[in-house]
């Protein structure tokens, strides 16, 4: 068995995994009948359909070919930096406040660019802090902790 399109093959596997997972988790709930559908009815139906579609997609990715289509390499650096930046923002906001969270987000994320420049990032930090203050805190009056908890009384 050869794979001619790795993108299709793996997409199919992913869909099958989701389809099966939803079917398995649905078993906790009552199925009911068509006339009196229980909470498990529709998700089980859809889960089965998704598993089937996934199988078809993977199957269509199989076959012999001279030039198989590969999945583009993963940009681990870019993925992990952006992930880390978002997590850091969410983790710092409740206790350390929006100012710290903004600075943390920008300085974790910015170096992900291939032409990261310290000066530009410094300027944009100042601009974004001012803009966030004017738009989100003053303008839209969004509710978030402003300063770190230990400074704010």
């Amino acid at each position: 068995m050869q794979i001619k399109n790795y993108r299709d093959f793996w997409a199919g596997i992913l869909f099958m995994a989701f389809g099966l997972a939803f079917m398995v988790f649905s078993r906790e709930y009552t199925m009911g009948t068509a006339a009196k559908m229980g909470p498990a009815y529709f998700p089980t139906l859809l889960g089965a359909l998704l598993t089937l579609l996934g199988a078809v997609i993977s199957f269509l990715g199989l076959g012999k070919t001279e030039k198989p289509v590969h999945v583009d390499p993963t940009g681990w650096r870019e993925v992990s930096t952006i992930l880390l930046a978002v997590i850091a923002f969410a983790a710092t906001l409740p206790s350390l406040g929006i100012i710290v969270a903004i600075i943390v987000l920008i300085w974790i994320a910015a170096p992900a660019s291939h032409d990261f420049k310290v000066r530009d990032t410094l300027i944009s930090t100042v601009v974004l802090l001012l803009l966030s203050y004017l738009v989100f805190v003053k303008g839209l009056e969004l509710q978030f902790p402003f300063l770190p908890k230990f400074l704010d009384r």
Partner: protein
Amino acid sequence: MDILFGNLATGFSAAATAANLFYCFVGVFLGTLIGVLPGIGPLATIAMLLPATYKMTDPTSALIMLAGIYYGAQYGGSTTAILVNLPGESSSVVTTLDGYQMARRGRAGPALAIAAIGSFFAGTVATFMIAAFAPPLAEVAFKFGPAEYFSLMVLGLIAAVVLAHGSVVKALAMVVLGLLIGLIGTDVNSGVARFSFDIPELSDGIEFVAVAMGIFGFAEIILNLEQREHREVFTSKVAGLMPSASEFKQSVFPIIRGTALGSFLGILPGGGAVLSSFSAYALEKKLSKTPERFGKGAIEGVAGPEAANNAGAQTSFIPMLTLGIPTNPVMALMVAAMMIHNIQPGPQVMTSNPTLFWGLIASMWVGNLLLVILNLPLIGLWIKLLSVPYRVLFPAILLFCCIGAYSINNNVFDVFMTIPFLVLGYLFKKFDCEPAPLLLGFVLGKLMEEYLRRALTISRGDPTVFFTRPLSATLLVIAAVLLLLVLLPAISKRREEAFQGD
């Protein structure tokens, strides 16, 4: 006809209040801004601003502003396409083909002018189309029972699949996965919190904004960073804006054809700006006596698609306003915006909230007028903006998305919730799966289950109810025909060509 003008008068008097004019301006200004900037689209922007509309007392203002972002982005996107050879929006991908070539020959000004004029003409026609077609469609919608609504959603989702790029089977799978993710949360009938794994926040379901930001916002940023773009901006080349007489003559019919095609494709489920511009480009190339000029700076290749994408963006409001069913992700957000203000989208909106309904429609024409002013005389401002490098831009986008996600419930849970969707969105891109159908499925998941349940309860479990009721059967037959057509090899080949655009 008299009723139509009476309705439009209601609309214009609602749209012309100082507050609504202001929000309309804010909307189209922001729309142009994010349209010009590659890497951020109307979807992420509307999602970011959605929580902010809680604060607005008048839902009409909120919708006017959000709508302005969508069609405003169509104008802004063409500027970037013509000057930088990068699509500012996905709907201006085809504009890069000929618009950029015109810019290289020193005709950037006329290309920008024709794009704006074509868009304005299309916007005007589309405004009247909505005013004329929405009321009769809403009449039909009142006759719908649960079986019809279910079949209509099936048709809508199938049409979205048919019109998506790439593999049909993958798009179908994306829709089904979206439906399933949409089911997460408390089941309204039994009160059971499904797939929530005892996480209290999950029992309310996943926020649409978190899904949209993760899949469209964050995953897009990562992919842009991987690509390491290089830009070449033709800033100094925008000398005169006035097209020559022959350029005008060449553009008249493409603009009219683009408007007609875009207005029609916009109404279709899954349609909207992107499909319209691609199809209009293919049409102009086909009709041209000199197709070899396309891709080398043919003004028809700018005029047709630019008119079409604006017309399509506007007429895609018709199904949302009359049936309450979103046909593309942006419309799904508009539905969410209405629900925030306790307005249940559907055919009753026209009669229960006439100033909102007609005010929104009238504001589109006002917005288009503002856009012409914003885009032609102020073109220099947008060119300046294009010189902002992506390395400065993306942390800002990231920040606004995070704040947007947080402000839905003033809770960082929704920010954390974007992470699984970031990962999913990234994987789907790598596996060539178009994410838009997933988002549509996500919005419709619970509604579809509810209508299925009601229809089957009424019929006592007999599934033939969907085929014995004539309206429902017609909708399902159309869906089946669409699906069959697209699976036929001959058509699917033509479809690939249309989406590749050249």
